[in-house]
């Protein structure tokens, strides 16, 4: 046995430790709860000089999977981590990885797949991977996450297939346990030199990877993949045996607890198996011979081992943390049923869907589930623990605080289009006068104290009268306003996944237009407002540009707080250069984020939409007027894009009461210039140079914890580079403002 040391760590941290020790070449990732900590921990190692794995923050999981595929096709050792919708967004890349036989290791911290959105743990994501040609190991506890990560690479490279290491999101990914890890040298020796495989960097022997294939060839390709799974099944047992010699920890494809004489066996996947062991002890004390098993390999599925262990039981109680709707069981219990049937077992299998959306699974739940299943009238499939249906609904709440659009038609602000000047002129829009406009978003939302998002939404709505329909991308703004059974919206609202909001809004608008055209609806004036964070503009830029090119009549409102704040502040493409974040830590080997903020304003302006504007709460009257203009453009001409700099005290790491000053400093140092591009013509709304208010970028950076370090002497080059970039952009902007042709 090799020397090991004790750590108190959770599943995500252990996955990161394993990856650091393996010394992968590349990790392509996009943050998603609950797997994000893996990339975050690797970034900490990197900042401290303890790891040099190349971490690539993609703009979405689809690209992250693309990066991983390219990296493995180039012959690199490749690592990834994702969850839930991230896995689904990347899904089409998965069969490519396996079909062209490129090994890699991907961790999946399993989580509930959206709609409606839920960030808690269940198995609805991982089951989508069953048919992708990936080996899937399932770790029931944090220690196994570490161990499986080491064995996964071994297996991947031996059978030339990608491997997913799955484990329960939160229950395993975030639970700290006393665990053991090897010395780094032990891991280096264990995984050995990377074996060579066909790669696109082999210039001596040029290879075509990824051919266009016909029927027979595909048949053969898939047959080979199927055979590789059989090989994986055989090799896995050996790998487990060897690992036991190294670690002293025994793994099996199917783990069992007190099953020898058990008449009733719990079959559970993941952390629930551990909890169920306690239920087994308790039920056994009452003289009922029960046991529990879990499967550590979902693919290849250990049919033989499972049937062998359960052959003498009368009943299997299978828990599904996912449902294959309409199939009479979740994917897991369908597999268990198939396995037992294949070996001619005649007992009874009871499937129970439980623990969806992170519903806790207590020892008492296992016992209750068991009691429910041994009832002679029990159905063989059902849901466990569904809330009592007899509870009465709160009918009085329905529509109680809805807003009558008439009440928001107060004529406090109005716009008129000047055909000659090709400009929208605004009247009204006063800061004081518009305070009486009823709010479309109600108080009582759960945003952090001092959050900038509701501030910006409030200012935006102050300039817009009449009907409003909202669509929010996933993000803080959505999460804090719509926690069921509460909602802060007093006007119609739709949420959709955050790469897709602009497209979805496009669909809404198309139906309105079509219904009016067909005479199914009277003509209606509605301002459609699609709200996104800067994260949504990373992953959703494609959809936003699509809607912009179609010039669909909506406001696309971006609250830019410069990071993925809802998931704990990972860098976004809008995060300032040099800022520290959970995926751009400041340390001896790293100064913070390594590339400049994306100029989304210019990208949107280049798409040719009629109105583009930047706004900031530090200039509230300007904000309200631009909101009014945007609404008029969106109703009459097409898309309006409005971008607000939005404070995040939690992750900017400053005081809520100072945020207006911080935002003002960002505007005054020209990091966030206020301007409009109206029908292609640029005009500055506020020129701090002209008014003598321009401040050096340090004035702004020094006000936030995330950038304060940049004021130190050692980072002067970083700050100078940022200043240079800001100045260049502002000069170009001024040139555009001075010359209508630009």
């Amino acid at each position: 046995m090799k020397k090991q040391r004790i750590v108190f760590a959770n599943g995500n941290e252990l996955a990161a430790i394993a990856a650091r020790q393996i010394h992968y070449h590349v990790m392509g990732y996009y943050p998603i709860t609950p797997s994000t900590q893996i990339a975050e921990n690797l970034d900490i190692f990197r900042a401290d000089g303890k790891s040099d794995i190349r971490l690539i923050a993609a703009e979405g999981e689809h690209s992250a999977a693309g990066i991983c595929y390219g990296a493995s096709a180039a012959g690199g050792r490749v690592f990834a981590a994702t969850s839930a919708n991230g896995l689904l967004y990347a899904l089409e890349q998965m069969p490519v990885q396996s079909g062209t036989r490129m090994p890699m290791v991907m961790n999946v911290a399993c989580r509930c797949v959206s709609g409606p959105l839920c960030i808690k743990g269940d198995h609805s994501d991982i089951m989508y991977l069953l048919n992708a040609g990936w080996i899937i190991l399932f770790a029931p506890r944090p220690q196994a996450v570490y161990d499986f990560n080491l064995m996964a690479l071994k297996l991947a490279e031996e059978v030339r297939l990608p491997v997913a290491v799955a484990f329960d999101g939160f229950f395993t990914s975030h639970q700290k346990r006393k665990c053991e890890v090897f010395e780094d040298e032990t891991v280096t020796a264990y995984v050995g030199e990377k074996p060579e495989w066909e790669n696109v960097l082999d210039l001596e022997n040029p290879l075509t990877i990824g051919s266009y294939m016909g029927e027979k060839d595909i048949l053969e390709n898939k047959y080979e993949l199927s055979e590789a799974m059989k090989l994986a099944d055989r090799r896995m047992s050996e790998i487990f045996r060897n690992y036991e010699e190294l670690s002293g920890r025994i793994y099996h494809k199917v783990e069992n607890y007190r099953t020898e004489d058990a008449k009733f066996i719990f079959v559970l996947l993941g952390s629930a198996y551990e909890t169920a062991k306690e239920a087994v002890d308790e039920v056994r004390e009452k003289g009922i011979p029960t046991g529990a098993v879990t499967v550590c390999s979902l693919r290849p599925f250990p049919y033989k081992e499972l049937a062998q262990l359960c052959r003498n039981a009368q009943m299997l109680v299978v828990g599904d943390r996912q449902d294959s709707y309409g199939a009479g069981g979740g994917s897991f219990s369908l597999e268990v049923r198939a396995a037992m049937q294949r070996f001619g077992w005649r007992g009874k299998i009871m499937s129970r869907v439980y623990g969806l959306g992170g519903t806790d699974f207590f020892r008492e739940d296992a016992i209750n589930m068991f009691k429910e299943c041994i009832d002679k009238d029990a159905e063989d499939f059902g849901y466990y623990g569904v809330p009592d249906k007899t509870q009465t609904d709160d009918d009085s709440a329905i529509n109680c605080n809805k807003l009558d659009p008439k009440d928001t038609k107060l004529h406090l602000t109005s716009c008129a289009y000047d055909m000659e000047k090709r400009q929208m002129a605004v009247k009204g829009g006063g800061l004081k006068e518009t305070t009486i406009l009823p709010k479309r978003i109600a108080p009582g939302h759960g945003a952090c104290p001092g959050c900038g998002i509701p501030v910006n939404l409030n200012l935006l709505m102050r300039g817009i009268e009449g009907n409003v329909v909202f669509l929010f991308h996933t993000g803080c703004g959505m999460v804090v306003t719509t926690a069921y059974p509460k909602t802060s919206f007093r006007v119609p609202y739709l949420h959709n996944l955050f790469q897709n909001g602009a497209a979805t809004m496009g669909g809404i608008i198309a139906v309105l237009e079509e219904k009016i055209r067909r005479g199914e609806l009277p003509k209606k004036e509605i301002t459609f407002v699609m709200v996104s964070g800067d994260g949504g503009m990373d992953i959703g830029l494609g959809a936003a540009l699509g809607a912009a090119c179609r010039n669909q009549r909506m406001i696309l409102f971006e609250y830019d707080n410069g990071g993925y704040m809802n998931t704990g502040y990972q860098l976004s493409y809008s995060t300032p250069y040099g800022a520290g974040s959970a995926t751009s830590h400041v340390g001896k080997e790293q100064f913070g984020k390594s590339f400049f903020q994306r100029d989304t304003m210019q990208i949107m302006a280049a798409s040719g939409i009629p109105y583009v504007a930047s706004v900031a709460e530090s200039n509230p009257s300007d904000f309200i007027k631009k909101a009014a203009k945007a609404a008029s453009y969106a109703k009459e001409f097409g898309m309006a894009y409005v971008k607000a700099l939005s404070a995040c005290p939690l992750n900017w790491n400053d005081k809520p009461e100072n945020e207006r000053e911080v935002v003002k400093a960002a505007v005054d140092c020209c990091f966030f210039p206020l301007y409009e591009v109206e029908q292609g013509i640029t005009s500055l709304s506020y020129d701090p140079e002209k008014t003598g208010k321009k401040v050096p970028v340090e004035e702004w950076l020094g006000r936030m914890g995330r950038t304060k370090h940049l004021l130190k002497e050692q980072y002067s080059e970083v700050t100078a580079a940022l200043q240079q970039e800001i100045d260049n952009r502002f000069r170009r902007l001024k040139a555009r403002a001075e010359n209508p042709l630009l």
Partner: protein
Amino acid sequence: MNTILPDTDINGYYEIRLESIGGLGANLAGKLLGELGVFYMGLNASSFSSYGSEKKGSPVRAFVRYREQKGEIRNNAPVLKPHILGIFHEAMAYNYPVFDGIKKNSKIVLNTAFSAGEAAQKYNITTGQLYVMNAGAIARKCGCRLNMVMLGGVIAASGFLSLDGMKSLCRENLGKKYPEAILGNLKGIEQGYEMVRTQEGYVCGKDSTNVENLAQSPAGCGLVSMKEPWSGRFSGYLGGVNPAAGNSMENDLSASREGYVPVFHPEKCIHCGLCDSTCPDMVFRFEKKMVDGKENIVNPGPDYRYCKGCLRCVSVCPVAALTREEEEKALKEGWLKKWENQNKGKGHEKEAG
């Protein structure tokens, strides 16, 4: 056989639950307690938290489970019947079921300025042994974070966790990350420890026959619970659609405050609207009113149900009509109540009609 743990449940666990709001450091406290067990006490341990999105001000629970060295920790579920309950934020006692699962010999460490007897009565704590301390004041005095003081209190209440071990752990762990804060943190732990060590533990519900706070479990198995406040659901609507437009107005967010509130001085207000332009929580509801025979737009003052105490309004007010005050004082002086009452039943709800 237990050699270290004084009292364990039928499965051999000694369990701690910390109730807090995001931002006060309960998660870190739980982690440190776990590490204390593993690295300094020869115990097996696990620690985890209830999770949501990464927000400040919303409820968070941290759980710690200990077992003797050789014993395996298998239970992955939250702690229902804690041996020690630490309550970081007193205001939670109003809105959240923080006392669920408390047993007669459970120890409660509550952050409050009240005496144990007063607090037990005020929050209707019917069982358990209560220790109180004004952790916020101690933290301010020591220049440390509140969680350090609470940690000291929990360690003292346990009767077996090592104070020296925790101090070493903090030096090792936090000292490296935040060297400038370590002295204050150590002082905070010590003072929290002393505060609880010198108390006898107020026996709650002495006169009551209620032995245990029992309630329904979330899955309906009739055991103990971590019930969430429930306020209706809408089963007639497919796909989880919510027809209760704007019903977040029913929420009370005052528990998100961390000690300070903006106090409104109407006589100074010039009704300029700047506060409403910076308030994230829509606590201001300007309205048209006749003033001296003229129609004017006026600011009736904050609705404190929604105020999270961010003080943005205080810093933008040009005439100091909003000032930063300690919440405790403001409550005592009745400054908040006055405006809450004035706004009750109008404003938000009425606006719809």
